[in-house]
C-alpha cells in the first residue's frame, strides 16, 4: 500500500535538492581578498626560506666540518674526474695531501691504503700483491707495469680539499700537468702554477 506524503514535505525535499544542486554548481567562493591573503602568506614563506638559506641550512659541497678533517695517515675515497673514476686522497705524516687513482695499472683491481706497509704507508693491490709508493705513486712491488695516475689535490685556507686535475704516473707534476690544467681551468692554473713557481706546490 502506498502512503501519500504531505505536499509540504515533497516541496521541502524538492527545495533541498535544488539548494544542493546550486551549491555544487556555484562559482568558486575564493575571492580576490582570499587570494591576496594567500599570496601574502607565500611571500612570508619565501622570506623564511631565504633567511634559512643565508643562515646556512643548505649543505655546501666542500664545506669542512671539524669532524671531517683528514688526519695524518687517513685516506678518503672519491670519484674524479668522472663519476666512475675511483680515486683516493691520503694525508701524509708531514701534513701534505696526495691523490691517486685507485684502479691498479695491472688488472684494474681496487687499490687499498695500507698505513702499516713501508715507511710512510703504501697503496696496496690485494689481487697480485702490487704496491705503490705513497709519495710518488711509483711501483715498489709486484706486477703493475707502471705507477698510479695522479690526482692533483689542493687544500684551501678554509680547510677544504679539492681535486683540481690529473697527471700521468710518470709525469713530474709541475710542467705538463700545469699546462693541461691551464687548458681546462685557466683560473685554477694561475693559482696552482703561481704557487709552484714560488716553491709552495707539490
Amino acid at each position: 500500500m502506498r502512503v501519500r506524503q504531505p505536499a509540504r514535505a515533497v516541496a521541502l525535499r524538492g527545495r533541498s535538492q535544488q539548494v544542493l544542486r546550486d551549491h555544487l554548481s556555484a562559482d568558486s567562493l575564493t575571492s580576490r581578498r582570499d587570494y591576496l591573503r594567500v599570496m601574502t602568506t607565500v611571500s612570508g614563506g619565501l622570506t623564511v626560506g631565504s633567511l634559512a638559506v643565508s643562515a646556512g641550512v643548505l649543505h655546501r659541497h666542500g664545506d669542512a666540518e671539524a669532524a671531517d678533517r683528514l688526519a695524518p695517515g687517513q685516506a678518503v675515497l672519491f670519484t674524479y674526474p668522472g663519476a666512475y673514476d675511483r680515486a683516493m686522497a691520503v694525508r701524509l705524516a708531514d701534513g701534505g695531501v696526495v691523490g691517486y687513482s685507485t684502479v691498479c695499472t695491472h688488472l684494474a683491481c681496487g687499490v687499498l691504503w695500507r698505513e702499516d706497509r713501508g715507511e710512510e704507508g703504501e697503496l696496496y693491490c690485494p689481487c697480485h700483491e702490487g704496491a705503490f709508493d705513497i709519495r710518488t705513486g711509483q711501483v715498489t712491488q709486484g706486477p703493475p707495469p707502471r705507477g698510479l695516475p695522479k690526482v692533483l689535490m689542493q687544500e684551501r685556507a678554509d680547510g677544504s680539499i679539492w681535486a683540481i686535475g690529473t697527471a700521468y704516473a710518470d709525469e713530474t707534476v709541475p710542467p705538463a700537468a700545469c699546462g693541461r690544467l691551464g687548458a681546462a681551468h685557466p683560473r685554477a692554473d694561475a693559482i696552482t702554477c703561481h704557487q709552484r713557481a714560488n716553491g709552495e706546490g707539490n
Partner: protein
Amino acid sequence: MSFPPDYHPGSDQPRLNRPVPERYPQIRPTSGYADARILHSGPGPGAGTEQEPERSALLTARLLVVLSIVVGQLRALSLAVDAWMEGHTGTAWWCTGFQLLSFLIALGAWRIGTQDR
C-alpha cells in the same frame, strides 16, 4: 585594520545590507558574481552589494602588486641560493634583506583593507 578605520563594506542603510538572495530572489548562486541584473553600485535600484566600487579596483591593484612582489621574491631566492652555494654569503644576506622588505610591503598591501571585496 582597514583604511579609513571606520570603513565597512556595504551600505549605511541596513536594509540594503541584507543578503543578496534576500534582496534579489531571482539571483541564484549559479548566476555568478557579475549578474547582468546588477547594473549599478548602490544604494538604489539595481545596486549590487558593493557600495564603493573604487575599493574593488584598489583590491585588484593591490593583488597585482603582491603578485609582482612574489615573482621578485622567487627570483631573489634563486639568486640567494646561487650566491650561498658559491660562497658569497654577503650577497645571500642582501637577498634576504630584499625578501624581508618585499614581505613587509606585501603585508601592508594585505592589511590595509582586509574587508575589501
